[in-house]
């Protein structure tokens, strides 16, 4: 992908603005990383707690560039047949049957065995050819005409072997298929890898990527995010609810509320016509923010300290 084709990524400011127009408010750090990934043609490994918008980043970039988003969800046991390519066995089998029937016509008039074999060789080896190749996400991303965003989601869930499989793709943007050869990407795709840090990613993989750690956003940034997603909400309430979510994140919770949950909560408050945060509103809507019974209990017992002070003026 080149800058002239994608002026959306020509500068860091352009990226920030572009993302914002799609409702993705990002910190300068994120925009810098995307800019560099594009300019240097490097994959980005995005890490951070769940729900801070790692996957969303890739989706928004795809929207911004108007190129297809090709997503590969990783899981334990994911192998190259599901990630890279597979042979169309059914068609291959059919092909052998057809070939057998046509064999008589093909060898008609051949003098002796030697000539028959020679004719067979002339026939070409279509058995392992691109027609019989079923591309899976990784290969598909290489074949896109206009480039693509390749999202390798939750790479930490895959096996170590799979990581080594990724190395060739990430450093050279090519795929080796033993029966055919190497397939080079038509247009270098932009690659996002996300990880929730359930295990350490190997050094070899990290070395090939730019690393972006997205933490929970600051209060100001999160307010902007809520504003862009739930524009109708009252400013006072918006501030209060974001402050409250931030104080929840300081508690010892099994799962801290993520940005998506803040947005959901803001929407719920809007639906309930809440004007201000008070104990009753919070208690009745806490299940939107927190997904574990224990967490809800913890938050409820700490509610008194967490409750925003009554607003002045």
């Amino acid at each position: 992908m080149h800058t002239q084709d994608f002026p959306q990524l020509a500068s860091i400011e352009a990226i920030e603005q572009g993302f914002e127009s799609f409702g993705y408010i990002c910190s300068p750090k994120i925009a810098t990383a995307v800019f560099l990934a594009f300019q240097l043609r490097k994959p980005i490994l995005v890490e951070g707690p769940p729900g801070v918008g790692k996957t969303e980043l890739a989706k928004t970039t795809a929207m911004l560039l108007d190129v297809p988003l090709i997503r590969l969800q990783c899981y334990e046991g994911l192998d190259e047949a599901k990630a890279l390519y597979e042979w169309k066995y059914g068609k291959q089998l059919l092909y052998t049957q057809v070939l057998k029937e046509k064999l008589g016509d093909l060898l008609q008039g051949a003098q002796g065995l030697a000539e028959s074999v020679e004719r067979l060789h002339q026939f070409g080896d279509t058995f392992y050819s691109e027609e019989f190749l079923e591309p899976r996400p990784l290969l598909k991303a290489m074949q896109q005409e206009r480039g693509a965003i390749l999202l390798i989601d939750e790479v930490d869930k895959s096996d170590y072997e799979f990581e080594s499989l990724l190395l060739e793709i990430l450093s050279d943007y090519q795929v080796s298929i033993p029966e055919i050869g190497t397939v080079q990407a038509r247009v270098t795709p932009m690659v996002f890898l996300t990880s929730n840090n359930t295990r350490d990613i190997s050094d070899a993989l990290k070395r090939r990527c730019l690393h972006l750690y997205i933490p929970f956003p600051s209060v100001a940034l999160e307010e902007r995010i809520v504003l862009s997603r739930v524009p109708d909400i009252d400013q006072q309430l918006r501030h209060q609810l974001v402050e409250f979510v931030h104080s929840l994140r300081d508690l010892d919770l099994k799962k801290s509320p993520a940005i998506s949950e803040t947005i959901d909560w803001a929407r719920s408050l809007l639906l309930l016509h809440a004007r201000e945060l008070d104990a009753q509103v919070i208690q009745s809507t806490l299940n939107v923010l927190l997904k574990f019974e224990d967490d809800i209990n913890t938050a409820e017992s700490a509610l008194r300290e967490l409750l925003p002070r009554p607003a002045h003026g």
Partner: protein
Amino acid sequence: MAEPTQSSAMQSHLVNFIGLLRSHDVRVSPAETLDAMDVAATLGYARRDRLRDGLAAALAKTPAEEAIFQHCFSRFFDQRLADFSSTREERATQTGEQEAPSGPEAASMPKGDADHSAAQLLETAAQTDADLQALLTSPLLRQLQDNDSAALNLAMGEAAASVGLSQIRMFTQKGQFTRRMLDAMGEDQLRRTLVRLDQEDSPALEPLRRYRDILREQVRDYVERQYLLQAEGENARFMDDLLRRTRLSNLELRYQHRVQELVQRMARKLAERHARKRRTYRRGKLDMGRTLRRGIANDGILFHTHWKRTQKNKPQLLAICDVSGSVAAYAKFLLLFLYSLQDVLPKVRSFAFSSHLGEVSELFAQHPVDKAIELVNWRYGGATDYGKSLQDFARLALDDINSSTTVIMLGDARNNHGDPQLDIMRSIYQRSRRVIWLNPESRRAWGTGDSEMPRYLSACHFAAECNNLTQLERIVDQLLKMNR
């Protein structure tokens, strides 16, 4: 910024910065160094916050590394420009003149009156003195006179590179490096002229001497900063190195915490390198060639499909640790290592013994490390009886030993002249893939007194002396490699 000299100087700064990161235990590969250069070239040096974010993306690969990166970045880049203007202000106020403009733009501004008079004084003196004239036209003096802090900093950076300032490790080296840097910057010419002017009692002496003092002060500060930057990480690494090489029994208690960290880091590293996940038997890919070949017998009808299977052997590790009094000092660390290894490798079973033997895997799994080690010592500590312990081991685990099992024995083989039960050791040897004996005693001591080591050696694939962390790491690394 596009000036070639400046960008190459920035590049060498960047390399120094990466060196600094490395000394703070951030692993940066040469490929990442190149990435960092690309990043800097793409982003430019104009916006520091951008450069910081960009370099962080290329160099720091974990949140912990990023924290170190931020710390190093602010210390390294923010202090890079030495402040020549402060001394300049001082000079201006000394002579009672108006304060001269400071900051990087000062160089391009018209010179202050104070400088002007000093320059005039020097120039008049130089008219009759060819030597002084030559000195004044030298780049160093010009930069000092113009107060061109950017150029002077550049010169200091170059001088630092040429004398290898980044190698500074000890505070005793500071004076020496300052001297060598000054020489590299061409201060000797200035020094010689000063001596001569002093004898002649020239009026140019005073302004010239001031320039020299400014220069010296700045270089001294520069060296000091470099020392602080370099030595901080280096000292920690030196300490780690030392601890690794010290005999485990000699390690003092106060370092134990640190050793614990080291051992855990080591175990994690080893496990990462050798991790094998348990995997169920997979159907695998269709093997077209074989399927066709099988079909030939049925007149080309593909009756049976043939699948390429991927079978992984599942290495199993059994570790037996002697915790008796004779090896108490080692045992503590060996247990620590076992504990860490079990933490990071999927199939480790740990056993401890002295007079009798028991499995401690569960203990390790349930308790935090300190508590677990204490419990093991309490439960299994005492006088050594290898014979009885091997019997216990055979009862507990002999049936589980197969061709993919590795057995590690950690102990000194001192059996208090009891029955060594060599036949059990033999059967372990025959069944397992590998038996490895790590003995904390030096090889020369094997077989002396009540040591049964030579006899047990016949039932080991590999035996080694192991009494510090480096040896331990090397051996376990080898062992895991063989295990694949």
